[in-house]
């Protein structure tokens, strides 16, 4: 299908921070309901790419298109208004606030016609949104700081999903997580994919997990894309070979 409109497309994105060139021209595309895994080392530019897609940084050059329309995000809010939500590695959760306050952070519900928060409505909707994608927490009134890493990740994902995101960016959702918690997050991602109403981009370190859950993968090394392919046609060995080749080249 050559006439596919991509949910999100990036063309030749570069980013420079002062004298450091973080990205050297990265392109990617994502069909509605598709999931892309981005692999690469720390400092390879994955998180910078994510922050450009989510509107946190502006690219130094290159184009971004949402549903075929060119966009220039001025802020995270602006990207959000185009249906792009990011779940950062630090989760952007406030430990001293309750689960439901975190779920509605910066898009709080107010009692109609007043400046006052509608705690009741937020509590109910947060509980419903969590139940909807099968996330269990002790109580939506619990402070987030009291929850486990997996629960916190799930809340951050649920928050992004419940804001009617069409493209969900996940920055290392499986980092620093035990097997059971990681399994819970992978199951959550698979439930989201099964629903089919959201496209996903996931940054990860674990090749096997990424190939398992994503439709296609790309490898980012030193700010450039060194590999792209369908997960079904790619093996962990192949990815490891690319990394090895890259290291040998770098060593010489």
């Amino acid at each position: 299908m050559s006439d596919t409109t991509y949910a999100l497309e990036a063309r030749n994105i570069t980013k420079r921070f002062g004298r450091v060139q973080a990205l050297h021209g990265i392109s990617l595309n994502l069909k509605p309901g598709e999931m892309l895994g981005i692999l690469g080392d720390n400092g390879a530019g994955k998180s910078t790419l994510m922050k450009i897609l989510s509107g946190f940084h502006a690219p130094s050059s290159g184009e971004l298109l949402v549903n075929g329309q060119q966009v220039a995000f001025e802020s995270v809010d602006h990207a959000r208004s185009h249906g792009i939500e990011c779940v950062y590695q630090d989760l952007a959760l406030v430990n001293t606030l309750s689960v439901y306050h975190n779920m509605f952070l910066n898009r709080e519900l107010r009692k109609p016609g007043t400046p006052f928060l509608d705690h009741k409505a937020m509590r109910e909707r947060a509980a419903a949104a969590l139940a909807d994608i099968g996330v269990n927490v002790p109580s939506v009134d619990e402070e987030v700081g009291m929850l486990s890493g997996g629960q916190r990740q799930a809340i951050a994902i649920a928050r992004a999903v419940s804001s009617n995101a069409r493209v969900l960016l996940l920055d290392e959702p499986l980092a620093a997580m035990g097997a059971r918690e990681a399994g819970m997050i992978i199951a959550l991602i698979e439930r989201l994919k099964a629903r089919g109403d959201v496209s996903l981009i996931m940054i990860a370190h674990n090749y096997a997990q990424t190939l398992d859950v994503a439709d296609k993968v790309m490898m980012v090394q030193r700010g450039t894309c060194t590999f792209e392919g369908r997960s079904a046609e790619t093996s962990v060995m192949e990815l490891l070979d690319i990394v090895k080749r890259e290291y040998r080249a770098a060593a010489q």
Partner: protein
Amino acid sequence: MNKTKATLPTLLLRKPEASILLAGIVLVIVFQILTPNFFTDANLQTVSQFFAPWTLIACGEIMLLIAGEVDLSVGQVFALAPFIMHFAMLAGLPVILGVIVALLVSALLGLFIGVITVRFGVPSFITTLGAMLLFNGLTLTISGGFPIDTPAGATGFVLGGWDYSEILWAVVIALGMHVMLRHTRWGLHTVAVGGNPTGAAEAGIHIRRIKIGNFMLCSLLGGFAGILNAFHVTSIDPNAGGANVMFLAIASAVIGGTSLMGGSGTILGGLIGAAVLGILQDGFTLLGINAFTFDIITGAAILITMISNVQFAAWRRRSRT
């Protein structure tokens, strides 16, 4: 989650306001027993006039502490604002407009320190330490170092003339601020900014705006407290307020359960904390214990509260997992 029974011990552990409220009630009972004069109209006036100024300032400091900042210069705004009012009136403005001009200037001073803090990344401890001397010098310069009388009239009476004016203002404003902290986006975002600045920014919250706004609010409240106090004592004193009232305000905040680490705090706790400090000061005066002892007690109270806050936080974490 298992519903914890609302027994007194659990309430004391869960609600920081509860333990300080209990301490306050115990103090009132003790002072009433030791001296027959505690519950007299005259004494209640004295107590309320003691703690009204630092209650107002505590409200501002609590918002700043929650946002991860502090304002050491607010006590100097307290002294400066009434002089601004005085000079605005010399320029021909009526009292009420003089008050408004003084409040605007107070807010601008907050804007000044807020912008320096967030724009240039100077820690607010340093910014406001500098501002403390700067504002004090300003007050001494424009006043010539001499106190002057407050203007007579209805405005002054409403603001600070009646015996309970100050405390009434303080309590009403504290309740309003409580609603703002717990039931508006501004309050919630203030907690978010102090609790996780990066996360708050990633969620799209304008953290600079929140911080600067709270600096302005704190200075505004400091200026207002200074004006109320000037009308109450019918004198505008260049040496009023100062570091003393600022420290008592921060002490009230901390004793009431506001964290110095940012991200959590309570206005109601601060109000009760301020009252407890007022009751202590007054009770010691009634008992004839001198002011030096009061400082020892206040200092010890802050240390004990901080230790218990840290311990309770750790205990809560352990007990819930």
